[in-house]
């Protein structure tokens, strides 16, 4: 599903040049659950942003479902993104001014789904993450675990083929963290490909494969199953 080859990304300020990705090559197959680990600054988040089509690489190739997307323009990327990729963030990134229901509904609005269809779909997903009873609450009224479940619901509401998770349990206690990890596992078992960046060895054990990164390069790969 994902094949990146010799990918490079360099951040430049006036005086400093930081190599975030240094000729990185990895492949993720459809239906896989991959964990990306490594110390701060090793390029994990940059990788995730490029995989999520939020950022573009300076050099190298990025094949998504067999199509070269590294040179896609903003509009094409946005289009590909909203139909194929869901995001889960460490800090949830819910919009405070919108209710749980409205937050989850948002991606569907942007794909142009009709209101009755949207309602049905949102309720389905909210049910799945067991947050239906909180549908009219605002994010600030929920616990961290509940907020992240809403974020997961929002990530999957479009039935994306790929979920990118950036430290999904980073802001949660272990109980809530486990709940979210189990939810992701469940989604993976239903066929969704997941790439997750994490610092947690515990969480990484939920995945099939661990990619360890250092200084913008993949150093080892542990296959867990």
């Amino acid at each position, binding site marked *: 599903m994902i094949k990146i080859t010799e990918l490079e990304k360099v951040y430049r300020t006036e005086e400093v040049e930081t190599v975030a990705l240094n000729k990185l090559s990895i492949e993720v197959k459809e239906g896989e659950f991959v964990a990306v680990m490594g110390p701060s600054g090793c390029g994990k988040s940059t990788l995730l942003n490029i995989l999520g089509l939020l950022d573009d690489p300076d050099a190298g190739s990025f094949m998504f479902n067999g199509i070269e997307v590294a040179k896609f323009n903003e509009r094409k990327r946005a289009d590909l*993104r909203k139909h194929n990729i869901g995001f889960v963030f460490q800090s949830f990134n819910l919009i405070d001014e919108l209710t749980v229901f409205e937050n989850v509904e948002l*991606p569907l609005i942007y794909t142009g789904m009709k209101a009755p269809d949207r309602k049905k779909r949102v309720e389905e997903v909210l049910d799945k993450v067991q947050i239906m009873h909180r549908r009219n609450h605002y994010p600030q009224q929920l616990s961290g675990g509940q907020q992240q479940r809403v974020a997961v619901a*929002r990530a999957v509401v479009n039935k994306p083929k790929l979920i990118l998770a950036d430290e999904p349990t980073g802001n949660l206690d272990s109980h809530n963290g486990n709940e979210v990890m189990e939810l992701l596992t469940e989604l993976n078992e239903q066929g969704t490909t997941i790439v997750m960046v994490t610092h947690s060895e515990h969480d990484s054990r939920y995945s099939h494969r661990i990619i360890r990164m250092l200084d913008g390069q993949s150093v080892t790969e542990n296959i867990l199953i």
Partner: protein
Amino acid sequence: MLTNEAQDKKFSENKGYYADAASVDMFGLHLIKGNPHTALDAPDKIILSESTAKKYFGNEDALGKTLVNRSGEHVQPFEVTGVYKDFPGNSHLIMNYLVSYSTLGKELLSGGDSSNQSETAWGWYDFYVYVQLKPGVDFHQLESKLPAFTNKYINTEEWRKTNNVRDELHLIPLSDIHLYSNYNQEAEVNGNGQAVSFLFLIAIFIICIAWINYINLATARSVERAKEVGVRKVLGALRSNLIRQFLMESLVLNIISLLLSLIIFFLLLHPFDGFTGRDNYTGFALTANYWLIFFALFAGGTLLSGLYPAFVLSGFKPVVVLKGAFKNTSSGLLLRKSLIVIQFVTSVVLIAGTIIVYQQVNYMRNQSVGANINQTLVLKGPQTLADSLYQSVYQPFKTAVLQQSSVKNIAASTSVMGDEIYWTNGSKRPGADQSAVTLYNLGVDYDFIPSYDIKMAAGRNFSPQFGTDKKAVILNENAAKLLGFKDAASAVNQKLLRGGSDTVNIVGVTANFHQLGLQKTIDPMIIVPRPNSASYYSIKIEPGKEQQTIASLKQTWNRYFPKDPFDYFFLDESFGQQYKADILFGKVFGVFAFLAILIACFGLLGLSAYNVLQRTKEIGIRKVLGASAQSILVLLSRDFLKLIFISLFLAIPVGWYIMTSWLQDYAYRINIGWWVFALAGTVAFLVAIVTISIQVLKATVMNPVKSLRTE
């Protein structure tokens, strides 16, 4: 008219007064030459302003020299006993020269008035009496004693009742004359106090908006500065240190704007004088009061605009802001929104107001006067000619003028259009059960009405063929109506009691024409035959031949009236002068409208920047979820555009009310069209959209990754 006969320098003068000896002291005249105590203490003494002295005597010393006043056959020499510094141009009383008051008494005595009315008459209304009160005295107190004074010295109450006469004396503070006095025969054209207060209010409003904008923007920036405050507090800063810091920042900003405003002020001073068509009035800028207000504004502005942000910013809790969870509260949001609305209501009202003022001025200038005032050169008539000789000089002059091919005709009259008429008297129909109505008199020769193309509504013009025309009069339609005639035709050949005793025949009624500008209603007029009218000669000339005609007219003039100055003006220009103040008002209004919308846009710019900043994360999330640039644009502009729309709808009634009351001052006025507000609204709306877009576009193209990174 005064003449320096030694050098044959003569000018017609109308800015001179009889004044008693006390006036030198009271007006604070600064005598460069002469003795202030004796300058006006005896008959036939004259003191001149510096520029008047220069006009007649050049660089010679005027003191002790003679100026001659000629009026008809009357020749009166004055001795120059002083020269005073010119009054500033913004005085309510322009005095080019003063003649000792006792001169008037001497003239009246020699004219056979043994009672010397200059010291005894109360009924002469062309005198200005100045009363200097002791310090601390309330003039209202004195005014309340004047009715008793009137009863004792002027006329008793019973006499007034039986003769249907009103005698009232009023006081007006000197400083109020220019803006608030509105009597007949003011010394100078007065300003409009209402307009001044109006402009003053707008100026105050603009500076308040600027202050509040500063507060708004400073607090809006608090999100950015919260972290700084947190770090400073962790490092040991007390709240008072921070308040001082933020106040200092505000002070520095205010000092910079103060310096900028001073530079701009002095740079614009001369262009502004040109813009308003006035003399250089820099004098006011240097009074102590002016600087006091200036610095009070500065200090007040610094404190007011600095204090609120200083307190808000210094109150942040370091733990909260350093965690990065800090977010500005929504309190104060309503205040900011209301401010935007108020700013835009003001802008729309001012834009619409500017359009309406221009429309009204255009309307007045383009509307027909009811008489043809184009291509009309007006000569001020000779004053030195004796009545008995008048026709024998005027007729050959007239013939000579008419011989010039570029001259179409010439007419004489006591007044011309644009000239306020003071010659009035009461008239009534004989036997009619009505009180006398006041009619405004215009004396004309036989050529006046045809020369000006004034239409006759009924009857005929005066004619030398009718021997009876000495007792004939012509009314205008308003006078006929006021006298109770059912239409113009029914007034013709009727009798009229003019001024109480003089029975005259109405031979015609003219269509109404505008003696004055369209601000004024058309007064009821009575036109009387005065073939000897010598005040003005109206000469109709061919277009394109003005300069050569003036040159040859001057030659002819000097041949027939060698003792009188050749003094002329073009009637359309002088008539147009009546709209000068309105045109000026329109210009200033336009400048204010521009300033208001500019400042409103600064506020809007700041607030939309703030809004974008607040919603950066939201925009990021939405973009990650697939929002298009357009949808973000709509999302961010929607709230502001709503506010602008609210402003438009508020501006319509406010603007309509204000401008309708402004138009009440005009007897002839436009109707306010709905499109004026549509246009003003569209302008404000477009400017607002452009302003908002600057910020919003930045936000839409921003990479969402940046806003979402929290580690």
